[in-house]
């Protein structure tokens, strides 16, 4: 931070989409050799700001952009690249069927007299990979690399154009903790080389560990920048959501809930291969956690209960009646709904309106004879959903694509709730959701339980499970390895069961 001028200065950047003001006079200053975290809820304007920096969007007139103290204008992604700005998006943009080297040089192939100079490209690529400490070779096919390695290819691509400002959008979202450590080492090395790294993340722990400074956006406005020594969870959350930490992570959420009759009973359910035989139960008004490491078989078990995957043995009782759903439609008709962990791929219909998304599961049961829809009722359900779940959208006729992650998740919840379910299976209900929406979702789950619904929740975030579950089943290698209740629901206890080596079930049952 000793340089005379900031590497990047954005001043008074605004951006409006139609009637929506996505950014309102945002400032951002980044110095060379700095890791600068950019935080804010989903929809706060981080991506919009970065898209302006990368030339994908044009800012409204009035703002100023300076690189090395010189005023510049970025009209296209090419302009951004020439100024040394490179962005690594959450969803990587590599060509999987090409080699590492082909990807690194893509679009800027070295050539002599129109013929590719493969040797030169290989050399350049190998140099960069060596600098990054990569454990793969330039001619490896990208499809054979792990996600972490592919990310490294993206970084190599940025370095090959001499990027000086590297923007990373949630780079650790799909990495293991070992891979994350390695990435952090790499980011620090790049910092030491004088690059500026703009690091977008929702994970506080990462920001503490990595960031030199942290800027916060809220509702499209710049809130402030904290230095490393001033970073603190309470302060950051307060800046991001504009209210106090005490509203959040209420430990007493389950307090005073009373349980009714058994709603779901699963007995020795198995897919005949990897999952089960597994048994569990959920009572009315109860929130039951299904915990375990990634790959322990939680989602598979849930999908079997929901009829999305065939079961090969065991049985499912709903309200004491045997249920053998061979299709999700049958499970939904019986009163079970499932919220998928993959909101985009398995949940929402991005080009359909909020209203249609909300109505999909109940359109048939609402309809007049011959499948003629009750459109007035559908419109009412759409408008109700906006109000009831405080979904931020222009109207129920907006397409889901335009919403932030948290609001999308609420639309998905609205669809489930429309069916008035007895049992909700929630698979990672707060994944990729900002803090405000998270707190709304916790409140909603608590409210549902209090109104007598049975809830089975899968979550990889242990504090979340601990915060809201009354009982927790822990899975390991496709089996239920144990169950914990009450005061036993602690991070240590759950992790002990999830990672234990012996095959004997632990915990009381």
């Amino acid at each position, binding site marked *: 931070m000793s340089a005379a001028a900031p590497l990047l200065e954005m001043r008074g950047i605004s951006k409006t989409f139609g009637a929506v003001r996505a950014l309102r006079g945002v400032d951002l200053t980044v110095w060379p050799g700095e890791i600068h975290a950019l935080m804010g809820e989903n929809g706060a304007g981080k991506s919009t700001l970065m898209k302006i920096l990368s030339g994908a969007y044009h800012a409204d007139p009035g703002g100023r952009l300076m690189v090395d103290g010189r005023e510049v204008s970025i009209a296209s992604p090419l302009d951004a690249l020439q100024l040394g700005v490179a962005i690594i998006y959450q969803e990587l943009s590599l060509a999987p069927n090409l080699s590492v080297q082909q990807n690194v040089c893509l679009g800027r192939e070295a050539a002599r007299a129109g013929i590719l100079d493969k040797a030169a490209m290989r050399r350049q690529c190998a140099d960069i990979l060596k600098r990054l400490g990569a454990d793969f070779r330039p001619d490896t096919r990208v499809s054979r690399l792990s996600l972490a390695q592919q990310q490294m290819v993206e970084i190599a691509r940025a370095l090959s154009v001499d990027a000086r400002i590297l923007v990373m959008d949630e780079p650790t979202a799909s990495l293991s903790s070992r891979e994350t450590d390695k990435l952090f080492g790499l980011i620090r090395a790049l910092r030491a080389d004088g690059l500026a790294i703009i690091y977008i993340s929702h994970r506080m722990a990462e920001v503490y560990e990595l960031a030199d400074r942290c800027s916060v956006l809220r509702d499209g406005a710049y809130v402030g920048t904290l230095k490393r020594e001033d970073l603190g969870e309470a302060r950051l959350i307060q800046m991001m959501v504009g209210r106090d930490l005490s509203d959040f992570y209420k430990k007493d959420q389950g307090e005073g809930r009373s349980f009714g009759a058994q709603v779901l009973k699963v007995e020795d359910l198995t897919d005949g291969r990897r999952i089960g035989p597994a048994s569990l139960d959920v009572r009315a008004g109860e929130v039951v956690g299904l915990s375990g490491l990634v790959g322990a078989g939680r989602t598979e078990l849930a999908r079997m209960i*929901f009829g*999305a995957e065939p079961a090969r043995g065991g049985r499912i009782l709903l309200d004491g009646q045997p249920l053998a759903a061979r*299709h*999700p*439609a049958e*499970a*939904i*008709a019986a009163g079970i709904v*499932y919220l*998928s962990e993959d909101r985009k*791929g*398995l*949940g*929402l*219909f*991005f*080009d*359909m*309106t909020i*209203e*249609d998304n909300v*109505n*999909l*599961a109940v*359109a*048939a049961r609402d*309809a007049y004879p*011959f*499948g*003629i*829809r009750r*459109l007035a009722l559908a*419109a*009412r359900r759409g*408008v*109700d959903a*906006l*109000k*009831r779940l405080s979904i931020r959208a*222009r*109207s*129920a*006729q*907006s397409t889901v694509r335009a919403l932030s992650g948290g609001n999308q998740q609420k639309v998905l919840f609205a*669809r489930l709730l429309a069916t008035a379910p007895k049992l909700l299976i929630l698979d990672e209900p707060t994944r990729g959701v900002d803090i405000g929406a998270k707190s709304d979702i916790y409140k909603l789950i608590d409210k549902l339980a209090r109104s007598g619904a049975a809830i089975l929740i899968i979550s990889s975030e242990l504090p979340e499970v601990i915060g809201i579950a009354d009982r927790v089943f822990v899975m390991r290698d496709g089996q239920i390895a144990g169950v914990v209740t009450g005061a036993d629901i602690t991070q240590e206890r759950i992790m002990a069961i999830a990672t234990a080596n012996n095959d004997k079930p632990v915990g009381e049952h």
Partner: protein
Amino acid sequence: MSGTPSNASQVDDLSLSVGRAEATRSLVRALGMLPVLLLLCIAFSLATGKFATVQNLIIIVQQASINLVLASGMTFVILTGGIDLSIGSVLAAAAMAALIVSLDPTWAVMAIPVALLVGVAFGTLNGSLIALVPLPPFIVTLGALTAIRGSARLLGNDTTVFNSDLGYAVIGEGDLFGIPWLTVIALGVVVISWFVLTKTVLGLYIYAIGGNPDAARLTGIKVKRVLILVYALSGLTAGLGGVMASARLYAANGLQLGQAYELDAIAAVILGGTSFLGGIGSVWGTVVGALMIAVLSNGLILTGVPDVWQSIVKGLIIIGAVALDRFRTGAEKAS
């Protein structure tokens, strides 16, 4: 659900009126190609006085009518993200069946039902292979294109079947209050398609499946059932097309009838702004697309463009129109 009644209804009114504004916008998007259609009409009117007469416009719509019927069915299929290449052959097979039945005095009244049944049967077969095996729609209907064409020839022992006393010939040459029956049928099919797509559960499911088939299944939609139904409907419209085509000709030939009709139907759907990937589009767009194709054919003949050049110009205008549309909607997004 919450808030005082008066408050809530105010919120309702506000959201519903914003909703209406957005609905209007989506209508504009659906009719995106309408300006191009009007432009073509103006250009042909200026080029020749023969174009913009009431009589000629009636002829254009009549010439568009079979394609309109086929394209309506194709709209359903493409909205699910599929394609049906077999409809030209299905049309020929249905027409052959209808004519053969019409020649037998006892069964002649069943000619139309038989044609429709043949269409539905082939469509259901396509749909079952696509949904149940499952196989890609392109492959299944490409195979069906050839196989059903062969079946159509087989039905008439590879000859042309005539019936100068065709019971349903009125469809081909009669009119209702001055509007040809072919046009009346086409408009009927369009209105029914519009109704199904926008007012029924099936329509909602079709858009959902086209948008995200995996999510559709998890939402409780029986995707396979809907797909079979959609291809059956496409077969039904092809069967109806067979009735219409044979009614005009008093004859059917298994080899020649309906050749390449599937291409005009697909062109009409795509010109109408329906996404080839499924999930986005409307039948009104298809109407505009089908009329564009008919206007082009008619206008190029009237302005005396040589036959060879007609197809070249027609093809280029189709590509150009879609490019223009992409350019326009792309510009909208960026601004």
